[in-house]
């Protein structure tokens, strides 16, 4: 592959992530019998308009450390997405998978550090909630992803791993009811409360890219489940499937709009443990059959 195509493929997520977010908003509006952002430009670019506006606003800086962590968070999410795109091109390289999983965990660690670095009681409440949700899924997500990408396993185990990955992708993308770290009116935006102008734009952009990473991983694992991953054609399908996955996650969030946020994390933990238990049972059966 020549350098131009490589540059193009790695640039795609940075350009399209806010566009997918705008489309998600439009789809959500349609489900709620609304029009949503008006006109063609707004339908596709509303999230870009938000980011551009935030960059032009005044920056009220409450601590330099927070600014540094916010920028580092964007940097690590960007590295993760670049590695993911390289993995799409060369899925057979195992060290790329190892690198991807490492950077996935580093970037989520940075979002946790950002949450606790703010000197605000509402932010502390949000950070505590973010820790709780991340602890409930992150370990399961990374291990199931590693097994799925590195080992060829029977279909029943593959299906259970896919369920864990899909659930984790939804939760880690910070959609309802797992947006409790932010929980807008309840704790006044929680972990985002003190961010303003360009710093808020940086964080929002990191979130868009993070959502892109999760949607693309979910699309890839779906192809892996079907058994068509690993080819150049499959990589193209993954790229085309990513916006659909993104919007499906958005639609699920509308469906879960009326769920109780307080029982969300504990229900999630229970579901995860049940899935892990089922996987162990399936593994024992598979071992006995062999």
């Amino acid at each position, binding site marked *: 592959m020549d350098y131009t195509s490589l540059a193009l493929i790695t640039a795609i997520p940075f350009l399209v992530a806010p566009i997918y977010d705008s489309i998600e*908003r439009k789809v959500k*509006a349609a489900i*709620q*019998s*609304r*029009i*949503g*952002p*008006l006109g063609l430009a*707004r339908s596709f670019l*509303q999230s870009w*308009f*938000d980011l*551009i*506006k935030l960059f*032009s*606003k*005044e*920056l*009220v800086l409450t601590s330099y450390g927070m600014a540094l962590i916010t920028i580092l968070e964007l940097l690590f999410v960007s590295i993760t997405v670049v590695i993911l795109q390289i993995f799409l091109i060369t899925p057979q390289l195992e060290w790329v998978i190892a690198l991807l999983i490492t950077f996935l965990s580093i970037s989520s660690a940075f979002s946790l550090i950002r949450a606790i670095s703010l000197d605000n009681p509402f932010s502390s409440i949000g950070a505590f909630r973010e820790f709780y949700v991340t602890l409930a899924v992150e370990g399961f997500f990374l291990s199931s992803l590693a097994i799925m990408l590195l080992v060829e396993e029977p279909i029943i185990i593959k299906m259970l791993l896919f369920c864990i990955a899909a659930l984790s992708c939804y939760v880690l993308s910070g959609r309802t009811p797992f947006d409790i770290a932010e929980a*807008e*009116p309840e704790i*006044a*935006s929680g972990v*985002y*409360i*003190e*961010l*303003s*102008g360009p710093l*808020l734009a940086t964080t929002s952009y990191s979130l868009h890219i993070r959502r892109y990473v999760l949607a693309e991983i979910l699309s890839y694992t779906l192809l892996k489940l079907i058994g068509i991953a690993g080819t150049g054609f499959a990589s193209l399908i993954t790229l085309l499937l990513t916006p659909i996955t993104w919007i499906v996650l958005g639609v699920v969030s509308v469906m879960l709009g009326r769920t109780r946020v307080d029982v969300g994390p504990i229900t999630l933990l229970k579901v995860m443990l049940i899935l892990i238990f089922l996987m162990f049972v399936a593994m024992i059966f598979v071992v006995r059959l062999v």
Partner: protein
Amino acid sequence: MKLEERLRGVRRSPWVYHLNSGSCNACDIEILDALTPFFDAERFGVKLVASPRHADVVLFTGPVTREALPKVVKTLKAVPRPRIVVAIGSCAVGGGIWWNTYSTIGGFEKFQGVLKQQGVEIDKVVYVPGCPARPEAIIYGLLLALGYVKQKVSKVVKVVES
């Protein structure tokens, strides 16, 4: 950068923050109504935010009670520039039924004097009268602040001699 240029960025994505300075709550209910799917303010990119640090436009209600005064000043200080305020309801416009009472400042016009003393600059103010103001009027006021529509009434005060 000039104010008009800075406002142009806000025009496409106005994030609003609801600030109650001691209203009777009827205007606040109308604001919530204006932001419901029925009126669908997201058509203009409007998004309700929960922190003043994220806000572009403050939807301001109430006559500013003395009790609420320090908190309201602090909140407006937290809004990054350019700061736009839409003063909603007769109370916020000029004190309304609380005009000249001991416990209120008497609307946003008078409150601006206090803000000036505290060094808080407000870049643009739009007044939406009504007791309570209608949701359509609130959206119109917001669009007026953003420059989507032109002001229909002039500021001329006519005194009729009897």
